[in-house]
């Protein structure tokens, strides 16, 4: 079958596949909104989180600062008790017991020195050194005593004992000069308990720098004990960064090299900076989490888009392939091919339409093939007719009432004998052209012609109303038309004439002939009668038998002629003619 080859014909591949289009569409529908939403969420989230973090860290710093300050103030409060009473001349046992009790209660205090109004040491108690009563040493010029007297409280600089342990002296003066001043040596290692208890978020922590930038307290006490300026430089840089931004939280690096966010609170009086820091990864954790979520959604969305695009494309491509293949087969003439689609959607409808089209094409092709076959062996006129009616069954044999019209030229034999063949051919050609157009104009069928004669059937194979009248009218037209041509021809031979005979009656009509050549013709007495009437007709004459004449009735003015004896008919046959005047008209 040629159809199979047609299917395999290379159709140019599409520039883009359905899958790619679907994917792009779905990707745009799924991933782009996600990307936009996720991106904006991340960006605004980052800004909000950063602002919130700043507030949070600053609050944490203030809180941490307050805790350190509370701790120092707690020590101050304890010390305050030792400078309540004025000194008497003699040693005060009660005061000594208070001092000893204070040492027990405040572990951070390493030693206490009580000096009286004139700055003389009256009592010294220590955890390690020997206690002294009435030591008498003069402290009046010491900065601690002068400072405490001036401001009430004096904080000494942080010193590192043995280059390692941070200590500080706190001096407190009573509200009257008579009660003297207390000097306490504080072991700052104890702040560790405070500082290590401070947690910012999950892993954030706090540390304390003194005014020159030395590390006073840090959750990792060994950093403090190392008293290493180089190691604490990143922390100093953090503080410098915060100061440069007038106290706002900044990002920087801690001693471990981690990126942190840091905020600071200053402790007034001590000039210490309490700085809290939180790893950026933790602080911005929610943002990272949101980004991860968005990313995951994007990946999932893209994967879903891919999957749906694939499924949709598969869903579409299957039917489309079937349709394509089916159309190609049908196009190649394989009309019995049916596209089998039961998708229940538009595809199925399209397939049904294609199938209908294919079956209609099959029918029409079958018909045209049949007609083509008929045309091979039918007279063109009949074939034309069949073609027009679209049904070869009209050619089947049957018996019908027909009107048979015969016509021929008078004197043609003599004319053709003495005239140039080319001229004869020209004459015949004009003659037939003229008659054929009239025959087809009247819906009659030219079944046969030979030489100058012609047989025409009316009412077969195509039935028509009022066949007799039609036949007579046609005969008149033929006579008129041929007579016009005759005007020119008579110059060639004045014996030329044109006669017509027609008869009506039942005849068997149908195809007749061999396999190579088929004719449509009528057989019956009526044919003979028409033929004899034609032979009997003179130029200008149209002879009509009784049946046709009666069928025409009074529609046309007919004249009954004298009954004629015709060859093959025993009785004289009644003959009618149409008036010549009618023809001229």
């Amino acid at each position, binding site marked *: 079958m040629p159809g199979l080859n047609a299917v395999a014909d290379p159709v140019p591949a599409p520039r883009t596949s359905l899958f790619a289009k679907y994917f792009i569409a779905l990707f745009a529908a799924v991933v782009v909104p996600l990307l936009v939403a996720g991106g904006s969420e991340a960006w605004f989230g980052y800004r909000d989180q950063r602002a919130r973090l700043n507030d949070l860290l600053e609050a944490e710093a203030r809180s941490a600062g307050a805790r350190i300050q509370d701790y120092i103030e707690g020590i101050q409060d304890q010390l305050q008790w030792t400078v309540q009473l004025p000194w008497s001349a003699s040693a005060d046992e009660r005061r000594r017991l208070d001092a000893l009790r204070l*040492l027990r209660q405040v572990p951070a205090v390493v030693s206490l020195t009580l000096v009286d109004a004139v700055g003389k040491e009256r009592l010294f108690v220590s*955890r*390690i050194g020997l206690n002294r009563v009435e030591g008498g040493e003069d402290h009046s010029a010491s900065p601690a005593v002068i400072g405490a007297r001036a401001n009430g409280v004096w904080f000494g600089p942080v010193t590192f004992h*043995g280059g*390692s342990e941070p200590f500080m002296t706190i001096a407190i003066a009573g509200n009257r000069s008579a009660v003297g001043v207390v000097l306490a040596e504080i072991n700052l290692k104890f702040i560790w308990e405070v500082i290590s208890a401070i947690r910012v978020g999950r892993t954030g922590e706090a540390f304390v720098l003194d005014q020159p930038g030395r590390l006073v307290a840090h959750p990792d006490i060994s950093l403090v004990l*190392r008293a290493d300026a180089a190691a604490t430089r990143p922390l100093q840089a953090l503080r410098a960064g915060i100061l440069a931004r007038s106290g706002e939280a900044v990002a920087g690096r801690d001693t471990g090299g981690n990126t942190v966010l840091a905020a600071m609170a200053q402790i007034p009086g001590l000039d210490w900076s309490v700085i809290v820091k939180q790893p950026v990864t933790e602080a911005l954790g929610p943002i990272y989490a949101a980004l991860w979520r968005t990313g995951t959604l994007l990946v999932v969305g893209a994967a879903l888009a891919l999957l749906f695009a694939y499924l949709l494309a598969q869903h579409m491509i299957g039917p489309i392939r079937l349709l394509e293949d089916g159309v190609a087969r049908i196009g190649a003439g394989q009309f019995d091919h049916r596209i089998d689609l039961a998708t229940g959607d538009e595809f199925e409808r399209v397939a049904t339409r294609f199938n209908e089209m294919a079956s209609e094409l099959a029918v029409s092709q079958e018909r045209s093939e049949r007609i083509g076959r008929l045309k091979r062996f039918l007279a063109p006129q009949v074939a034309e007719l069949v073609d027009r009616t679209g049904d070869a069954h009209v050619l089947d044999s049957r018996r019908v009432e027909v009107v048979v019209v015969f016509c021929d030229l008078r004197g043609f034999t003599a004319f053709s004998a003495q005239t140039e063949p080319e001229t004869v051919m020209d004459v015949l050609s004009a003659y037939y052209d003229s008659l054929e157009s009239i025959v087809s104009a009247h819906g009659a069928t030219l079944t046969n012609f030979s030489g100058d004669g012609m047989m025409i059937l009316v009412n077969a194979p195509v039935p028509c109303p009022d066949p007799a009248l039609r036949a007579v009218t046609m005969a008149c037209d033929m006579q008129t038309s041929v007579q016009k041509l005759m005007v020119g021809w008579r110059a060639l031979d004045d014996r030329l004439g044109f006669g017509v005979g027609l008869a009506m009656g039942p005849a068997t009509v149908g195809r007749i002939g061999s396999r190579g050549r088929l004719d449509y013709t009528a057989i019956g007495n009526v044919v003979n009668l028409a033929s004899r009437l034609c032979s009997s007709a003179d130029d200008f004459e149209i002879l009509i038998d009784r049946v046709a004449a009666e069928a025409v009735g009074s529609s046309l003015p007919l004249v009954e002629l004298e009954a004629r004896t015709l060859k093959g008919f025993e009785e004289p046959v009644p003959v009618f003619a149409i008036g010549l005047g009618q023809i001229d008209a």
Partner: protein
Amino acid sequence: MSRRDVIALAGAAAVHGAPAFAQRSAMPVIGYLGSETPEAYASRLDAFREGLAETGYIAGRDVSIAFRWAEGQYQRLPALAAELAGLQVSVIVAPGGAEVALAAKSVTATIPIVFEMGGDPVALGVVASLSRPGGNLTGVSSLSVEASSKRLEFMRELLPTARLLAAAVNPSSPTSKLQAANLQAAADSLGVRLRFLTASNEQEFDGVFAGAQQMQAGGIVFTSDPYFAYRSKRLAELAVQYGMPAITQARDFPAAGGLMSYGGDFRQSHRHTGVYAGRILKGEKPADLPVQRVTKVELFINLKAARELGTPFPPSLLSSADMVIE
């Protein structure tokens, strides 16, 4: 597995006398050098394990400990330390005084050592500086040695009328001379006579109490010395037996019936030792870990002992005491 791990594995196998299980192979090993017996160290070991656990190491689960005990024979310490070094342990813990630290220091310059001692590690030549110990040593120092003259002060406070007090010194201790000098100076400033009695082994303890009784000393002040500290129970027995007021550095002494003690909190110092051992196991360098000094010095007094001795505590001691044993 590195070569070090293989050796540690071998060490662990040797210590436990058990086949090397796969689980043990991943476990680091701590070499623990003790100057006495496990019994004497029991409370200190608990504190040490606590500190270790603070850093996330549970002995037996995350880390195994190879013990070497000198059982009071300090001359054996270097050999035992060498054994631990031979096991190629991850870290050597050398608690209980300068002798132990120095013994460990003498056998390795590479294996990290965490010491615990009463005196000044710089003065005793264990480390170059507190903040930057340098080398492979770091550790914890308690304030016991510095506080020894304070002990004399408390004894004087308790016995203000006594004209003579005795001081017990372990001449084999590296800090004995320093402490003796400090005590003498303190006695001078407190206005009391002081006589020194020596004991460098357990057999001489009896002689110290007998000597004090003989010279009619009001009481005995024991210098800070691990050897004494680990034998608090024996000293308490003798103090009760001789009816002699005495003060030592270790809380074990009043707890066992002795009169009072004043010294650094050994629980704190041993816990810190455990913390440092853990941090070193985690990869920190000893050189980066400053020597820690214990912040807590504690006064323990035993009221019952005071009653029996007929020496009631004055209010100053009562108010200074961190712990009063009824």
